[in-house]
C-alpha cells in the first residue's frame, strides 16, 4: 500500500462519523443461472439496484481482497419477495446472503472522458486505462422525448457509402435498420459510417457509440483496433457486453449505450449509436424472462419483447431548439436466418424504425458490396435528409437502376436486343459498379456527388464493366489532384450548381484525354 493511500485512510479515520442509518434488506433463498430469489425487500421498486453483502461472516482481510461490489437488478416484484438478476458473477452469491436495497434506479456514468474508452454494460472501463472520472450518472431507463420536444429530421448523417447516401439517405435523429443474414456486411456498413465522421468538421461531428451485444470479444477488439488506427476512436465510445457476459448485461447494454448518448444529446450534440445486434439482445431477454418464470409467448419470447425494442429505439430522436437541438441517430442491426424478414423479431423492429436497408447474401456472393438491395430498402425520411447536391444527382441513379432491374432478365439474350435496350442494360451495369465500394473506405459527400454525376453523364460507358470501379477511383483521385476547389465548394455549400457541373464536365473531358487506355472499349 503506497503512502498516498495511507494518508487517505488517516484522513478518513479523522473525519469518520457513525451514521446509525438503517437499510432495508432481504435474504437470498435461491440462486441459479444468474437469477436470485430474495425474501423480504418489501419496499423494493422495479429496476432498483441491490447490493449483495459478500463480506458477512468473512474476516476483514478477506473482505478487502474482494473484486468490488456485486450488484443485482430487481426485475420481478412478488408477494413475499423479489426476483433479481445478478449483474456479475453468479458464483459470488450464496443462499442466505444478505441483500441491501440501495433505493436507486440503475444508472450509468457518462461524460466527455468516456470518449475513446471501452466500457461494459454498467459503464465500467474495461480497456485497462483506469476508471473513467468526472462523470454524470444517467438513468438506464428513461422516458423518450415527447412529441412537443422533438423536431423533424432534416440534417443528413453522411455514412460515406454511396448506395446509402444517394438512395436511402439517413438523417440525424432517424432510426434506420440494417438487416440481413450472417456475413452480409452489416457491421461493416455500421463501422464505415463511424469512420466517415472523420470527414465531418469537428464542430458538427456526431459522437459515435458502438454497442456490441453478444459478440465475440475478438470481433470487438478488432473493431476497436480499426477505429484506433484510423483515428476514429477519440470520438467513439464502445459499450461491450460480449457473448461470455451474463444475459442481464447483454439485455442492459443497449439501454446503457443510449443513456450514455443522452448525456451528449442533452448538451445539444449529435450522437450516432449502433446496436450490434438487437437479435442477440432479444435472445438474452428471452433467457432472463424464462428464468424469471414469466409466461413465454411466440417463439418463447416474453409478451413485452416488442416493448423492449420500441422503448429503446424511441429514445433516438432529434430534439427541438428549446431542448438543445441535439439528436441521437440509431442504426440497429438485426440478423435474419436464411433471409426470413417475416420472422418475429425482424418484423417487430421493421415496424419501429424509420426505414431499413436489406443486405442480401446473393448480392454479397456476386461481389456487389455493400450488398444492399436498393430496390427494397427504404428510408422513410428520404430526401428531407439529403443535401441539395446529392438530391440533384441521386434522382438520375434511381431511375437508371429501376430501368436496369426491369431489363436484367433479358441480359442472357444480349446479342438479340435492340440498341436502346442494350444501352440501358450496359448503363445499368455500370451504375451498379459505381455503387460498389470497398469496406473500410467511406467516401466524402463531394466525391460521391462527383462520381454519381459522372455515372449519370455516361462517363463510364466506354469502360469495360469489370474496370468501372477502378476508373471511378482514378477519376476521383484526378479530381482531388486537379479540382480540389470545386470539391471543396460542393462540400462547403452542400450544393451542386451549374458552375460546378461545368467544371466537372470539363474534368471528365480532361480525364478521358489523359487516360485514353482506361476507355479502350
Amino acid at each position, binding site marked *: 500500500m503506497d503512502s498516498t*493511500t495511507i494518508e487517505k485512510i488517516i484522513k478518513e479515520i479523522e473525519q*469518520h462519523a457513525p451514521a*446509525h442509518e*438503517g437499510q432495508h434488506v432481504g435474504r437470498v433463498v435461491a440462486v441459479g443461472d444468474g437469477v436470485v430469489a430474495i425474501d423480504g425487500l418489501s419496499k423494493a421498486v422495479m429496476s432498483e439496484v441491490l447490493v449483495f453483502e459478500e463480506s458477512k461472516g468473512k474476516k*476483514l482481510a478477506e473482505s478487502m481482497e474482494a473484486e468490488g461490489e456485486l450488484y443485482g437488478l430487481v426485475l420481478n416484484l412478488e408477494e413475499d419477495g423479489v426476483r433479481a438478476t445478478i449483474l456479475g458473477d453468479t458464483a459470488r452469491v450464496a443462499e442466505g446472503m444478505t441483500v441491501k436495497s440501495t433505493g436507486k434506479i440503475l444508472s450509468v456514468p457518462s461524460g466527455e472522458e468516456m470518449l475513446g474508452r471501452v466500457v461494459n454494460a454498467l459503464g465500467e472501463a474495461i480497456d485497462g486505462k483506469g476508471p473513467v472520472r468526472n462523470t454524470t450518472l444517467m438513468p438506464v431507463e428513461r422516458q423518450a422525448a415527447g412529441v412537443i420536444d422533438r423536431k423533424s429530421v432534416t440534417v443528413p448523417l453522411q455514412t460515406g457509402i454511396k448506395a446509402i447516401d444517394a438512395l436511402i439517405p439517413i438523417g440525424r435523429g432517424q432510426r434506420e435498420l440494417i438487416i440481413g443474414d450472417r456475413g452480409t456486411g452489416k457491421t461493416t456498413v455500421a463501422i464505415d459510417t463511424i469512420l466517415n465522421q472523420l470527414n465531418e468538421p469537428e464542430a458538427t461531428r456526431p459522437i459515435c457509440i458502438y454497442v456490441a451485444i453478444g459478440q465475440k470479444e475478438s470481433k470487438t477488439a478488432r473493431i476497436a483496433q480499426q477505429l484506433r488506427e484510423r483515428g476514429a476512436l477519440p470520438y467513439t465510445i464502445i459499450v461491450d457486453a460480449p457473448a461470455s457476459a451474463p444475459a442481464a448485461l447483454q439485455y442492459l447494454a443497449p439501454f446503457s449505450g443510449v443513456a450514455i448518448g443522452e448525456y451528449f444529446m442533452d448538451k445539444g450534440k449529435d450522437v450516432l449509436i449502433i446496436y450490434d445486434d438487437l437479435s442477440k439482445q432479444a435472445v438474452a431477454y428471452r433467457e432472463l424472462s424464462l428464468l424469471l418464470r414469466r409466461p413465454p409467448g411466440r417463439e418463447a419470447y416474453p409478451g413485452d419483447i416488442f416493448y423492449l425494442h420500441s422503448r429503446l429505439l424511441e429514445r433516438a430522436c432529434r430534439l427541438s431548439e428549446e431542448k438543445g437541438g441535439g439528436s441521437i441517430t440509431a442504426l440497429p442491426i438485426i440478423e435474419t436466418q436464411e433471409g426470413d424478414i417475416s420472422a418475429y423479431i425482424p418484423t417487430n423492429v421493421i415496424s419501429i424504425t424509420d426505414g431499413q436497408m436489406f443486405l442480401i447474401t446473393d448480392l454479397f456472393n456476386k461481389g456487389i458490396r455493400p450488398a444492399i438491395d436498393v430496390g427494397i430498402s427504404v428510408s422513410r425520411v428520404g430526401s428531407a435528409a439529403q443535401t441539395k447536391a446529392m438530391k440533384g444527382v441521386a434522382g438520375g441513379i434511381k431511375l437508371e437502376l429501376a430501368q436496369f432491374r426491369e431489363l436484367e432478365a433479358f441480359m442472357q439474350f444480349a446479342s438479340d436486343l435492340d440498341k436502346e435496350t442494350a444501352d440501358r442494360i450496359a448503363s445499368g451495369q455500370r451504375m451498379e459498379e459505381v455503387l460498389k465500394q470497398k469496406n473500410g473506405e467511406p467516401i466524402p459527400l463531394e466525391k460521391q456527388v462527383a462520381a454519381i454525376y459522372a455515372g449519370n453523364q455516361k462517363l463510364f460507358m466506354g469502360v469495360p464493366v469489370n474496370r468501372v470501379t477502378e476508373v471511378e477511383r482514378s477519376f476521383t483521385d484526378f479530381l482531388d489532384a486537379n479540382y480540389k476547389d470545386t470539391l471543396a465548394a460542393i462540400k462547403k455549400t452542400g450544393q451542386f450548381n451549374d458552375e460546378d457541373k461545368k467544371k466537372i464536365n470539363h474534368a471528365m473531358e480532361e480525364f478521358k484525354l489523359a487516360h485514353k487506355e482506361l476507355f479502350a472499349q
Partner: protein
Amino acid sequence: MEQTYATALWKLVENGMEYREAISALRENLAKTGRGNLLPRIGKAFERIAAREAAKNDVTLIIASEADEKKAHAAAKKALEAMNVDVKHLKTRIDPTIVGGWRLEGAGILVDESYKKSLLDMYNRAIQ
C-alpha cells in the same frame, strides 16, 4: 406448484381456518385432481413459509465479543426506537469477524455499526 399450494394453505390458516380442517380439505382437493403425491413437498414448502413468517419480526444483535454486549444493546435499542421498530425480544449473537462495534439484523432492516464495515468503507474510498 407445491409453493403455490403451501402459500394457499398458509393464507387459509392465517384467515382463521382450523389447521386440521385446512389440511383435510387440501388432501381431498389433491386426491380429486390426482396430485396426491405433491403432499410431502407441499408440507416442506409450508414448513419453510412458517419458519420465514416466524422469523419475520426477529431481530438479532451481532457483536464481536461478550464485552461489547451492554454498550451495543443500548445503542441498538436507541436505533430501533428511531426507526419505530417494535422488538419484543432482541437476540444476541457473537461474530468475531465484525472486529468491533455492533450490527442489527432482522425484520427487513439492517443497521451496521461494525468496525469492519467502517474500515472497509474507508479502505474502498481511499483506493478509488
